[in-house]
């Protein structure tokens, strides 16, 4: 058995060597062939952006289906929410109200708009004897007297349908809500609406310099997604390239090597992009991160190949032989580490959120490409280009650090294990400090206008998060039933007893207002009508008096058997939102007839459930990745026992990462829940390299456990430091993204990668030294002696 595996390993090296000779011999065809392959993918063209927030939800996401169902009954609520705050702090002036009137009229010109709500066109109902007036609350503001303005302010800031929805209590900020019905024919619609409304608001500010404006709403959310993805390309990608160039130059000190590596990276990205374009994958902020991730990971492949070539050449080996030797020793490790990385990224397909499938698949394709190009194009290029290497002694300082580290671990095996175990245990308690939270506003950093505008709006006017309930009335016209109306009113009152609730928009207020007006504006009638016929007839009357676009369709379904309750919330963690939603449903269960039962739905709720669904789906994804990677690992290092042992330094960094995250931030969102499978694929590389060198020393070179640890440190220690540095730098750059899902994902990945190296340098060698390894009895010796004669210089 062992013999056959040995043969396989040897076969791998022989394959790598043959691969290397082939590449050197046919360098031009190989180079042209790989270039042609990348070009063929590149011909797929540009990937388009998909910035509709709906892309975060799979087609069969239950919360999405529930919300679509609700929107089909009423109206679709994509909107632009424009807030106007005059610098003088008073909305109710002739000038500001005139500006709002103008903006409201102009807002009807917004593409795909179906409705515009403002305090000016609010349908105000009043009665004079038997005459019922239903009119715009504010018309021709320019002609109002101070007394009239005062009266308007009193009405607006006390009407429950307006306060905390379109105006604040103080009358210092007001909103215009533009509802749009996007046909969803192409991706540009949202951007079209955003561009139009921005221009409209800019023009208004030029005309009325006294006004401050803030914009939010779902159209702006979509547009912020687009800008976030685009911003990452424009700022982070160049920065990452710079870091890569500097790193390679510093570590290899060759110009042609740096150029060749850059070519490998560009070709890999081009291939992944072309794949994306062929597959029709739309770029989103999460999937857009693939470029920076490929950039980071592809470097690692190339660096392994490159560093060996340089090392060989510094030792005086001829360039072509150095290339062949590098491929001989690196082909299998690079293949295996690429394979585990690909498995890690493919595990993202278990995610509940499609952009993460795209991220996983695009990166996986990029990694396969990076493997091919760094074992084909890179050596071919180096075989063609002149490579100048100064023969010099290897740097000592790093070596001494690693040597000292090796000695430290060797002399402190048990304390190292004890200390790391305590550390891991402590971290694992901190893991529980994390709470699931997907407040989508917080996906954006405070530097993003959408975030700062939305924060202003939630601080000064209303909330952004909502929960919606469609409350049934059992039959056509049933919403006019006083029993239904009064229960609905009780529900509304109960909702207001919750501190998190900013505003409740329910149909009951319309009824109360109309009932009052039908009785000569007698305040005693600000309540539900006495019987069903009365209510139905008032409603008929009221509906006949409404203008275009301001009908009740957003609140009442067509056959008047259900009404919609929209609860606006303060900025609270999604966990509290889910709790409130459950409490509300439970209230209806306990206090209302069965037909009034309702579950809370909304886009907010869709996001609120997302991380939970994501975690559940990623548990299976990560498990599958773990099992597959373990198999690859056990196979690669030819030992089930060490394969199992290596899981410790690979799983524990995730635990530590989560623990430290819990201490620092304390929340987990959709972006973070994705990283475990992914990081597993990356950090396992360290273990593969370290363990294979250790085992080689034990099995083939016949060294003692201690000497084998020294050997492993001296051969791969520096390469691991360099690759970890590149990975950390790469993900640190990604952590600068303005898009929280990306920056959070990158930050926790940095923590995990760092601790993976620490554990690989401390805990892993300690564990290895304490576990016995069987020395190969027979068969392997001739092979190893054979090898040493063939081998020019022991390489990394």
């Amino acid at each position, binding site marked *: 058995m062992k013999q056959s595996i040995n043969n396989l390993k040897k076969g791998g090296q022989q394959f790598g060597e043959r691969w290397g000779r082939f590449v050197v011999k046919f360098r031009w065809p190989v180079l042209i062939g790989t270039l042609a392959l990348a070009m063929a993918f590149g011909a797929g063209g540009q990937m388009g952006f998909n910035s509709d927030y709906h892309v975060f939800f799979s087609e069969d996401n239950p919360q999405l289906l529930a919300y679509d169902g609700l929107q*089909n009954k009423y109206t679709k609520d994509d909107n632009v929410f424009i807030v106007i705050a005059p610098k003088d702090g008073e909305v109710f002036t002739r000038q500001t109200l005139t500006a709002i009137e103008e903006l409201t009229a102009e807002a*009807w*010109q*917004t*593409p*795909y*708009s*179906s409705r515009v709500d403002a305090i000016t066109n609010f*349908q105000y109902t009043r009665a004079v004897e*038997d*005459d*019922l*007036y*239903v*009119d715009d609350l504010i018309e021709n503001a320019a002609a109002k007297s101070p007394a009239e303005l005062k009266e308007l302010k009193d009405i607006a800031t006390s009407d429950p349908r307006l306060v905390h929805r379109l105006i604040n209590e103080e009358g210092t900020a007001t909103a215009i809500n533009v509802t749009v*019905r996007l046909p969803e024919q192409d991706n540009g619609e949202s951007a079209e609406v955003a561009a139009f409304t921005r221009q409209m608001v800019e023009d208004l500010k030029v005309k009325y310099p006294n006004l401050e404006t803030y914009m939010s709403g779902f159209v702006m959310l979509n547009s912020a997604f687009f800008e976030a993805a685009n911003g990452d390309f424009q700022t982070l990608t160049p920065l990452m390239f710079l870091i890569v160039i500097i790193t390679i130059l510093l570590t290899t000190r060759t110009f042609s090597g740096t150029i060749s590596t850059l070519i490998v990276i560009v070709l890999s990205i081009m291939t992944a992009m072309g794949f994306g374009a062929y597959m029709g994958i739309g770029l989103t902020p999460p999937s857009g991160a693939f470029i920076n991730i490929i950039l980071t990971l592809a470097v690692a492949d190339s660096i392994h190949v490159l560093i060996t070539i340089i090392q060989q050449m510094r030792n005086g080996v001829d360039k072509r032989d150095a290339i062949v030797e590098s491929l001989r020793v690196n082909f299998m490790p690079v293949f295996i580490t690429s394979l585990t990385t690909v498995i890690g990224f493919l595990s993202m397909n278990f995610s509940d959120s499609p952009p993460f499938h795209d991220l996983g698949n695009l990166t996986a394709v990029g990694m396969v490409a990076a493997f091919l190009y760094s074992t084909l194009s890179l050596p071919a290029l180096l075989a063609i280009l002149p490579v100048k290497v100064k023969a010099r002694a290897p740097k000592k300082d790093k070596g001494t650090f690693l040597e000292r580290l090796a000695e430290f671990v060797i002399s402190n095996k048990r304390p190292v294990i004890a200390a790391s175990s305590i550390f891991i245990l402590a971290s694992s308690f901190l893991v529980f400090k994390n709470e699931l939270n997907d407040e989508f506003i917080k996906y954006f950093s405070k530097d993003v206008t959408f975030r700062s505008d939305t924060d202003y709006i939630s601080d000064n006017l209303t909330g952004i998060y909502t929960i919606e309930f469609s409350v049934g009335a059992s039959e*056509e*016209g049933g919403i*006019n039933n006083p029993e239904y109306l009064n229960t609905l009113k009780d529900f509304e009152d109960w909702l207001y007893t919750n501190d998190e609730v900013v505003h409740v928009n329910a149909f009951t207020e319309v009824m109360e207002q109309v009932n009052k007006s*039908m009785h000569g504006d007698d305040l005693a009638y600000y309540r539900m*009508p006495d*019987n*069903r*016929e*009365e*209510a*139905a*007839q*008032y409603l*008929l*009357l009221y*509906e*006949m*008096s*409404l*203008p*275009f*676009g*301001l*009908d009740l*369709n957003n609140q009442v379904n*067509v*056959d*008047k058997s259900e009404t919609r309750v929209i609860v606006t919330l303060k900025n609270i963690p999604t966990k509290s939102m889910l709790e409130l939603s459950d409490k509300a449903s439970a209230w209806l269960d306990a206090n209302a007839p069965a037909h009034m039962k309702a579950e809370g739905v909304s886009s907010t709720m869709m996001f609120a459930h997302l991380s939970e669904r994501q975690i559940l789906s990623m548990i299976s994804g990560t498990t599958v990745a773990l099992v597959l990677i373990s198999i690859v690992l056990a196979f690669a290092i030819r030992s089930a026992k060490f394969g199992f042992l290596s899981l410790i330094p690979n799983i524990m960094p995730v635990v530590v990462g989560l623990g430290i995250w819990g201490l620092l931030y304390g929340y987990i969102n959709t972006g973070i829940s994705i990283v475990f499978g992914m990081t597993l694929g990356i950090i396992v590389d360290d273990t593969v390299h370290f363990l294979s060198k250790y085992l080689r020393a034990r099995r083939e070179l016949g060294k003692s456990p201690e000497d084998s640890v020294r050997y492993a440190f001296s051969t791969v220690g520096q390469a691991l430091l360099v690759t970890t540095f590149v990975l950390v730098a790469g993900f640190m750059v990604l952590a600068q993204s303005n898009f929280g899902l990306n920056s959070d994902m990158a930050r926790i990945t940095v923590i995990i990668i760092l601790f993976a190296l620490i554990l690989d340098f401390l805990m892993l060698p300690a564990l290895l030294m304490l576990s016995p390894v069987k020395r190969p009895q027979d068969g392997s010796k001739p092979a190893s002696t054979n090898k040493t004669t063939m081998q020019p210089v022991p390489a990394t």
Partner: protein
Amino acid sequence: MKKLVYTFATLLTALSLSAQSPEARGLEIAKAADAYDQGFGSSKTTLTMILTNKQGQESTRYMSNQTLELTEDGDKSLIVFDSPRDVKGTATLTFTHKEGSDDQWLYLPALKRVKRISSDNKSGPFMGSEFAYEDLSSQEVEKYSYKFLKEENINGVDTYVVERDPVDPKSGYARQVVWYNKENYRLEKMDFYDRKNALLKTLTYGNYEVYKEKHWRAGEMNMVNHQTGKKTKLLFEDYVFDLGFTDNDFSQNSLRRASR
């Protein structure tokens, strides 16, 4: 010489006719259509309104309508709702005016009172349907400005296509495009453009019948909302003319009576 002058004059007239501005020609067609239907006096009909939402669910309402023709001002009309059950007996009385907003009263059986609705808003949906009140009310010539667009043959019918813009700033429409039958000026089709000038709805007329030899009345009107995918079908049945209605039949008292 005289003959020559005559020929020249006819030629000029012909030229001036064809050189008539599109606005003038549009107004001429609208006036001709109005004139063509003049003299029907009064009529009564029952209405069935079938609402269909995007998912194909239907909901039906019944009502009856009587109209009194006036020439010096807009027509008067009285609508009585028969269903849904809760609003049975509710009746509206409307005096359309050639200029300014219409007058409207509503009788509510639950309250047993007549209420005057003072609102300029006539563009909201009528009974939750795809028809706005302004689509159904008397189409007085003065309520629009006109522009002749072209002649067109649709479904084998020769038509004049005229664009008309509502005078009322509160209208929900930027413009409408109307297809008039060349022969008898009956309406064949109408497109409604919303305030941002996007196509909102299309109304098609069908099952025309002629009464008193010249008054064409559609038996069916189909409104399709292109933006929401919702539809409303209006069926007109049992048209009766010459009922000898007078102003007394269109008073607040008649509202109460009609309700029973």
